[in-house]
């Protein structure tokens, strides 16, 4: 009978196509919406992606990467003396006002990196060389930031036009000149505007007001020492807090700074809520569409199930037939939808907008939801068939 159940499902190509479209579209909607949501949320741990250090060390009270509580410069030496540390470099991050040539002020994220190791430097420079940071008063600005800090001018066609900052342009931070020697490509962050990279020592100058400037230490373990092991040693020997930089937000290990940052935003800000409502809307629409398409499929077949029931099929057999149909349709629909989401995701990741992170968990959850919807629809169908009077088959 299960073979017949499948043939019933595949027998009407047009209706099958409708059903699969509904299921696939809702799977796509659910996967895509959630992926964009997690994409936006993944901006919270952007520093971990951009800075690429194996181990981060912070003040013990730090909970997430945006809330740097400054360390003492002497802490650097203490960390360097911990067994298993290959090297440790200082990192400064802060939000400061930059004064542009036209007199406007822009809030920037200042990143000061160690001038010897360049630990924490951006991975991709589209213009200039990282070594140019060793020249006086130099900075490297990220591509997107260069546009944000650009000048509004009137083009030849009379329309306003934004001219991004380019190599050679200057601006001021705390009355100290900053000259752009390079443009880099970095991932966007949730907080903070343009990323302005400079050396750690110069960053100290740019933030002359600040008493302490050591936000984090970036540490490289020696060969054979895992980041997690090194974290344990650093915490034991220095009393500071040490983090791994892996961006697996689903692990329950306490070590990942990315994970802590992600969930800190999750619990302490309204961001998940405001973006989550859009996702929920997508979920509801998806559930409604697939539930509706499946349900109408069941309704259309109700008459035939009633006939099968009159001919002597027990409810057990009919229930299994409906489940076979539901799960088969759910499986195919999910496959199509997830495939489309992957395809769309690839395009989005290439363009970078909107942000798109499709965790395997999203696919699993979508899979579970689609199957859940199929299951519930089949269940409703089963209840309907069980209620339908077998004698009704004699009527017109």
């Amino acid at each position: 009978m299960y073979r017949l159940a499948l043939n019933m499902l595949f027998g009407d190509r047009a209706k099958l196509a409708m059903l699969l479209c509904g299921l696939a579209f809702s799977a796509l909607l659910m996967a895509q919406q959630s992926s964009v949501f997690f994409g936006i949320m993944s901006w919270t741990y952007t520093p971990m992606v951009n800075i690429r250090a194996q181990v981060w060390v912070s003040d013990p009270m730090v909970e997430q990467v945006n809330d740097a509580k400054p360390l003492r410069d002497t802490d650097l030496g203490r960390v360097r003396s911990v067994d298993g540390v290959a090297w440790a470099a200082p990192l400064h991050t802060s939000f400061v006002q930059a004064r542009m040539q036209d007199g406007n002020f822009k809030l920037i994220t200042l990143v000061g990196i160690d001038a010897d190791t360049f630990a924490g430097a951006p991975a991709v420079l589209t213009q200039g060389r990282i070594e140019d940071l060793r020249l006086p008063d130099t900075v490297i600005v990220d591509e997107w930031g260069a546009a944000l800090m650009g000048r509004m001018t009137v083009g030849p066609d009379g329309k306003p036009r934004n001219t991004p900052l380019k190599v050679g342009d200057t601006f001021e931070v705390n009355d100290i000149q900053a000259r752009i020697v390079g443009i880099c490509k970095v991932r966007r962050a949730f907080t903070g505007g343009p990323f302005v990279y400079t050396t750690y020592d110069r960053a100290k100058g740019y933030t002359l007001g600040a008493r302490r400037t050591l936000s984090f230490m970036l540490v490289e373990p020696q060969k054979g020492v895992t980041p997690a092991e090194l974290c344990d040693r650093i915490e034991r020997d220095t009393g500071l807090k040490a983090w791994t930089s892996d961006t697996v937000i689903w692990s329950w290990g306490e070590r990942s700074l990315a994970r802590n940052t992600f969930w800190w935003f999750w619990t302490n800000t309204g961001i998940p809520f405001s973006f989550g409502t859009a996702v929920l809307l997508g979920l509801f629409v998806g559930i409604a569409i697939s539930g509706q398409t499946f349900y109408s499929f069941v309704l259309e077949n109700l008459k035939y199930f009633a006939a099968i029931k009159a001919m002597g099929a027990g409810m057990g057999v009919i229930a299994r037939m409906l489940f076979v149909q539901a799960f088969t349709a759910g499986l195919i629909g999910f496959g199509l939808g997830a495939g489309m989401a992957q395809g769309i995701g690839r395009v989005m990741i290439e363009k970078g907008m909107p942000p798109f992170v499709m965790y395997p968990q999203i696919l699993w959850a979508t899979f579970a939801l689609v199957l859940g919807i199929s299951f519930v629809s089949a269940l409703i169908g089963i209840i309907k068939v069980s209620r339908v009077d077998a004698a009704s088959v004699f009527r017109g």
Partner: protein
Amino acid sequence: MSHLAHTVAVRASGVDMFFGTPENQVVALQQADFEARRGELIMLVGPSGCGKTTLLSVIAGTLTPQAGTVEVFGQRLDGLGQEELTAFRRKHLGFVFQSFNLIPTLTVMENVMVPLLIQGRPYDEAHARSLAIIDKVGLKGREEGRPNALSGGQQQRVAIARALVHEPPLLICDEPTSALDKDTGGHIMQLVRDLSRSPERCVVVVTHDHRIFRFADRIAEMEDGRISRVVDDPKLLDTTHL
């Protein structure tokens, strides 16, 4: 008496069947008595709304009457639960409906296989037996087509093949010819008679269609929820030997 019990295929006695709420009650059957013998084709006739379909449903175990007893091939239906009634239908009954009730998304072959598959027969056996009966109803070569591609008469042939493929003792037909033209209806009834005529079998046909009365061994007339008269017209009986 024991001889009589031997010849009885279906017996319904004192059957009451009401529909609706107590305030707004429709009496479909009232103290209905009905008997069909083994080896016969009996027709149920009567005006619209007199309770023919309801009586058929009660005999088929798809409706449970409020009063009375029903016995089919020695099996009492009263007191059986839903699952037992279902099992009873699976084993003892074949159905031919006015609206054919063929599943449009399945092939002719698959439609005919349904009763055997419901019985849990292996697919290959069901296939072979279905092929044989499709041949008997004259649709050889059409088994892989869809029912909708067939004419009304051909569709009803498929329904007959489906009703008989598992060789049920009792064949129940509700207005099997009313959707068909005269000649086709005659052919269909001829087929039903040819395929189901045997001492172990019984055919009950509800019909309005006087053109097929000649296929009946006996005709039971219904009126207001009960059998009013059973005629044994020898003339009609004679035509059955054609």
